[in-house]
């Protein structure tokens, strides 16, 4: 047991060391300029030097992504509830929700900034728009694909529409909501960073996206890579957080919707 747990930590670490080694070796071998590709140690150094900027930027971007995800969870669930109540509504509006999924976020981000300004709330909005579709589609399918026996049980009791919605449909859809959140949380981070790209340094604050664009201007590749790593870590933190919340919620809800850790 002990050894297998050890392997779980050591094996990825070894992969990382080999990867960093190859990276370092390639930079030396091909004699690459540090603007093209800095050495791993340069990146670590740059990250250390900018640690406070990166931490503050991560915190800001985290807030934007989290609020964006929260907004899409609330708004997306409400849309799904409306969708679940009528087939006509569903059929009429679904294409437009799909539109939110298919429209390239990079294309509408400048528009949103034009309308809502170089502000934090615009970044939240971009994050919300990009992450709302999986919530709407998952929760809608959770709300309408009910266990037939359970639906009959409520019909036998002449339950009202609202009773069916609140006591059966919504609780039944909780696992689907959590699933939607898991899919969306990565998108929310992407949305926040893309939003920050466009807000750029015209904005009053510095998220990770803003840091990346600024370091790009300085040709500080090591710091850029450092910020990218911070973005990835941020996505991971949000995913872990969502999984944690999801597990807590589902523990109350269903049998074995455990998350593989």
């Amino acid at each position, binding site marked *: 047991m002990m050894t297998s747990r050890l392997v779980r930590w050591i094996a990825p670490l070894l992969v990382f060391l080999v990867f960093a080694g190859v990276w370092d070796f390639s930079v030396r071998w091909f004699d690459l300029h540090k603007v093209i590709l800095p050495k791993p140690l340069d990146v670590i150094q740059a990250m250390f030097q900018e640690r406070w900027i990166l931490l503050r930027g991560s915190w800001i971007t985290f807030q934007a992504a989290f609020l964006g995800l929260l907004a899409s969870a609330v708004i997306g669930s409400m849309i799904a509830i409306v969708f679940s109540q009528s087939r006509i509504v569903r059929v009429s509006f679904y294409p437009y929700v799909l539109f939110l999924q298919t429209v390239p976020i990079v294309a509408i981000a400048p528009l949103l900034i034009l309308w809502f300004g170089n502000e934090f709330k615009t970044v939240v909005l971009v994050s919300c728009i990009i992450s709302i579709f999986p919530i709407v589609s998952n929760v809608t399918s959770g709300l309408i694909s009910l*266990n037939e*026996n*359970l639906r*009959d*049980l*409520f*019909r*036998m*009791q*002449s*339950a009202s529409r609202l*009773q069916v919605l609140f*006591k*059966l449909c919504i*609780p039944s859809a*909780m696992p689907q909501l959590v699933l939607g959140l898991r899919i969306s949380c990565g998108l929310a981070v992407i949305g926040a960073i893309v939003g920050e790209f466009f807000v750029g340094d015209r904005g009053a604050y510095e998220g990770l996206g803003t840091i990346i664009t600024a370091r790009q201007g300085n040709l500080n590749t090591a710091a850029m890579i450092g910020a990218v790593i911070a973005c990835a870590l941020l996505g991971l933190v949000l995913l872990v957080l969502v999984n944690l919340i999801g597990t807590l919620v589902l523990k*109350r*809800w*269903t*049998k*074995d919707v455990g998350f593989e850790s």
Partner: protein
Amino acid sequence: MIASANELGLIQCNGIGISFSTRGQKRDVLKQLNLNVSANKIVSLLGPSGCGKSTLLRIIAGLVSPDSGSVTIDGAEWSTTTTSKPEWMSFVFQEAALLPWRTVRENVALPLELRGGASNDQSQDQVSRWLEHVGLGKSDWNKKPNQLSGGMKMRASIARAMVTKPKILLMDEPFAALDDVLRSRLNDLLLKIASEESCTVVFVTHNIAEAVYLSDTIAIMSRGQIAEQIPIQFHESRTNKLRGTPAFANYFGQVSDILFRTALDT
């Protein structure tokens, strides 16, 4: 009121017909089916898969509208829009159909809750009484359904069905997934409840022995109709010993004969 309906049958199905379309092909599931169920009796619907047993049960429950014919309960026309359903009947499904996010107790209280009366003491007593009555110990009341065995889930499901004091209990192969010992225990529980509560039961099953053990009448279905109705009467009381008696074997043989014959016809 029930006495007058008794002669006619508490549940009357008159000329029920229904067909379903699958891939453009229309298939008659029930054809001009007539069935009378007297009050306080247990009637089993027995027949091969796909003969329309469950559909008939769902029509009686008012969950499905027949294409033709009608159902009357205690002399009154019955349909999918009837609102007095909860006062009359409960349905027990093949799977226990418990809400996985509610505790056993909350599940049993659900029908009362949907009628807006679960919070008063009387209702809570009623819930506790039925939980005890079906044999669920206090330690199980606050468990979630996934912490219970199949038999216990079915007990909870029966408690939930009975908590509204229905006059009619409709059961769709409720014990099909249980092993023989559990099944016979739950058969005894059902007999006890039906007689104590003066409940009329319509019971769909595949299992001949179960049908013989439980029923006052076995209705054998074939090709969308009731092919034959066999009244079952025993001199002995219905306990496990009954299963070994010649009379039981006799009925068992008779029923399986008819089942076999009707199956050959199709």
